[in-house]
Every structure is written in C-alpha cells, then in structure tokens.
C-alpha cells in the first residue's frame, strides 16, 4: 500500500456538507437521502416519490453548476475506465444492484450507518469489499492503471 492523492480537508468539508443536506431533508421532510431510491422513484414514475424526487435530482445537477459559476477549483475529473463495454456493464450493475440491495453509498453508507442499521452496515461492507476486490482484479489484468 502506498498513499497517494490524499485530500483530507476537501473530502471532510464535502462530507460535512453532504451530512448537512441529509440532516435537513430528514428534519424538514422526514426522508432519508438514499439517492438510488430517490432517483429510481423518479424514472419509474412512482406516485408519492416522483415530484419531490424529481426536484431533489434537479438540485443535485444545479449544485455543481453553481459551484462552477463560483469558479470553484474542484478535485478534477478523470475517468480511468474508457472502454464502453466496461462503462455500460458498470452502469447496469450499479443500477440493478442498488435496487436489489435497496441502497447505495448514500442510503446504506451514510444514512444507514448513521442510524446504526446492521443491514446497512453489512451492505456497506459488502459493496466496499466487492469494489476493492474488483479494482485489484482490474489492475492485475491490466485493464485499468491507477
């Protein structure tokens, strides 16, 4: 192991801001900020979650636009994976997997862990573990270089 590109200040600041949004949505509206659930309710046009979910998703897109207007110097954008087969496979797995496992990084990883839900803690350990193994394999066979 070799520690690189470590940005504790930016990442902690961003994390606190994310936590603030999670706390606000719960305090004001009573919902957990699980983005895979919110977004899938929008595209599945599911009655009770459609309208507010749509506006949350619109906000999620407006936020970065506002930052770019402020000429915020972000932590960059690089996609190590450019093979379209891997990108499509990755997207399908993330989409299907988050619905089957009922949560993603925000739902299980932030909200679930904050509520000390055993189900979410286990879910988070599984997806992080699967991710670590996958990156190890990708690197070993030379499909990505990190």
């Amino acid at each position: 192991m070799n520690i690189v590109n470590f940005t504790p200040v930016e990442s902690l600041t961003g994390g606190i801001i994310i936590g603030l949004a999670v706390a606000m949505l719960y305090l004001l509206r009573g919902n957990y900020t699980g983005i895979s659930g919110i977004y899938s309710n929008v595209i599945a046009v599911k009655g009770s979650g459609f309208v507010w979910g749509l506006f949350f998703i619109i906000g999620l897109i407006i936020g970065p636009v506002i930052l770019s207007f402020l000429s915020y110097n972000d932590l960059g954008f690089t996609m190590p994976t450019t093979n379209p087969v891997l990108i499509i496979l990755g997207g399908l797995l993330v989409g299907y997997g988050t619905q089957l496992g009922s949560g993603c990084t925000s739902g299980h990883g932030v909200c679930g862990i904050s509520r000390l839900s055993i189900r979410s803690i286990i879910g988070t350990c599984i997806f992080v573990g699967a991710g670590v193994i996958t990156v190890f394999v990708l690197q070993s066979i030379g499909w990505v270089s990190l």
Partner: protein
Amino acid sequence: MIIKNIIIPLICGVIFGIGLVIAGMTNPAKVMGFLNLFGNWDPSLIFVMGGAIFVSMPAFLIIGKKMSTPIFNKKEGFSQQLKKDIDSPLIIGSTMFGIGWALVGFCPGPAIAALTVVDGNVFMFFIAMSIGMLLKRKF
C-alpha cells in the same frame, strides 16, 4: 405543498451536489483510488463518509428524540426503515453494486451530479445505470 415537494428537495439536492463535488466524489479516478487498497491508495473517501456521518448521526438522534413529525411533512411523518433482515437480495445486490462502482468509479449520486461535466462516457454510464434500475423495478 410547494415548500414540501419543490423547495425543500431542491435546496437539499443543491447542497448535496455541492458537497459531492467538493469532496471529490464526482471524480471517478478518486473513487477508484479509494478502492485501490492494495495499490496506490487514496484514503479520502473515508473522510467523506466520516464527515457526513459526523453530522447526520447526531442529527437523526436529536430529531428522533425531540420531534414527532418532520417540520413540513406532518402527514407522512418520518420514513420508517422497511427492512431489517440480512437477506440474499441485500448480499447479491450490494455485491453487484460494488463491482459496478469499482468498474467505472461512479455510484448513483455522483453519476447524476457529474452530468454537468458534459462527457459522453458519463452519459453512457448514466443511461446504463437508469436501465439497470428500471430492469429491477419494472420486471
């Protein structure tokens, strides 16, 4: 209704999106760097999750103790956790999600927020993710 269904979710979404970008989550190289535990490791994502939980954990605790309903949604009240059991959909779904997350470096929130980069590969991932969700939800 406008406050509850438009203004609150819009503002929370904006704040969440800003947090994602500042944290570096919208940079797939950074996320894959975190998952690269056995190589050149970038531990930053621990600070993202830690920072978020540092705020939301006490918030859930205090709100749960002090309030019986959310401020602008007295009718529906607080969301209740639907499932508690550790079942095979959780295990299989989370494994699939973890593999997909590592293949490209995007989870759902950042994939949506990164649409603002206006990049063909981000768009391709976003469409595939949406199809994957609908495959599970509709069939």
